[in-house]
């Protein structure tokens, strides 16, 4: 049996060595990890804007960077729809409600889509995503959820194509032109219902996640209403 001092000393030394090893590793790979995270966010913006990854050119970080720089214009607006200065990478898309990032898809000098970040509570976690609209600021071009901690197989299905594809072509404005977002139903959409263009099928077993998605879409898109109205009034962006 070893003495208490020996045991304590041994544990202390092992802890110091392992701690050093861990911080050394982290220090060496931190930049690369942050770069990956940023590229991943850009990748999701591109996907929501309906850019399609081709087999001949898979989306490595460099390719994503190139397409993004070439075809996406990024800036910020405020809740009145006026341009404001911002550092996009520092905008907190979950909490910040004053500075609103906007990503425009511009192909051959023609604006083809407007993507904005959305985020809010699901069941267990905050769900982060991007929703893109066509230039009419009404029709959904695409939606992507890229970060969440929902139950895999239930709420986690929000990131799957079968769910996000249902949003494409839906309308976020009501008949009197208010931004009302998209409602995620419990169950299937009844297409005979005139309201069905604002609704998508829910995920079985994930009613709360669906409700959360619906409510944060409404809230987050609502903050952009003034900007969307300006875009629509001007006809230009």
């Amino acid at each position, binding site marked *: 049996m070893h003495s208490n001092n020996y045991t304590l000393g041994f544990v202390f030394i092992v802890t110091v060595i392992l701690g050093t090893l861990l911080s050394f590793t982290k220090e060496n*790979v931190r930049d690369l990890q942050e770069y990956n995270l940023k590229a991943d966010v850009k990748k999701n913006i591109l996907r929501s804007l309906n850019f399609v990854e081709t087999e001949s050119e898979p989306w490595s970080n460099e390719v994503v960077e190139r397409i993004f720089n070439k075809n996406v214009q990024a800036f910020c607006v405020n809740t009145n729809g006026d341009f404001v200065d911002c550092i996009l990478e520092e905008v907190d898309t979950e909490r910040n409600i004053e500075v609103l990032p906007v990503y425009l898809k511009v192909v051959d000098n023609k604006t083809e889509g407007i993507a904005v970040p959305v985020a809010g509570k699901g069941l267990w976690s905050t769900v982060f995503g991007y929703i893109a609209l066509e230039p009419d600021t009404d029709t959904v071009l695409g939606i992507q959820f890229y970060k969440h901690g929902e139950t895999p197989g239930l709420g986690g299905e929000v990131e799957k194509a079968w769910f996000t594809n249902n949003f494409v072509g839906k309308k976020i404005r009501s008949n009197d032109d208010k931004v009302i977002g998209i409602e995620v139903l419990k169950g299937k959409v009844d297409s005979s219902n005139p309201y069905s263009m604002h609704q998508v099928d829910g995920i079985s077993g994930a009613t709360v996640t669906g409700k959360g998605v619906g409510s944060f879409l409404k809230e987050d898109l609502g903050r952009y209403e003034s900007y969307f109205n300006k875009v629509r009034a001007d006809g230009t962006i």
Partner: protein
Amino acid sequence: MELFNSESKKIINDPINVNNPISLQVLGICSALAVTIRLDQAIIMTLAVIFVLCSSNVILSLIRDYIPSRVRIVIMLSVIASLVSVVDELLQAYLYDMSKQLSVFVGLIITNCIIMGRAEAFALKNGPSKAFLDGLGNGLGYGMIIIIVSFFRELFGAGTITLPDGGAGYVLFSIPEAWYAAGYENIGLLVLSPGAFFILGLVIWTQREIFGIEEGE
């Protein structure tokens, strides 16, 4: 000691065949169910487990005479947890897409009973080179099973075979559209966890038949 005398061979071969950690000792089942949806995930997971298992075995075997037995479990856990964290950080840096798909299951290698089990049962009682071979053998035994399971789950569940390529995976083979047009359907159940149980059960049965292992003698 010689590296490839009959004893060393036995240390490597046993966990692959007659004493396989998954199919015969039934350890590490949770990760075997979770990361076997796609072949590329299973391959990367296997490499991660082999790395952690070999390193933890060697490190613990090197310091086995100095570890106070009262705190040996704590020491084993901290060594294993540190190694797993290193693997997790490296995956996030160099194989980002893969690390997103494997998500928590890389971190959960810490709780994989195979690793603690080998440390306690083997590494603390044997020299570093034997411990290394034991880690390699058990890692390969684990890998062999999850690779077989994931191959069938992906092929019949999703209709593809994907190899790891540093990005989102290289699709080596996918079932031709014409088959689907002719009425072929993927078995959706295999993509879910119960599907892994069915395949795993068949693998265990086959392996016990081959090696003539009987239960409860």
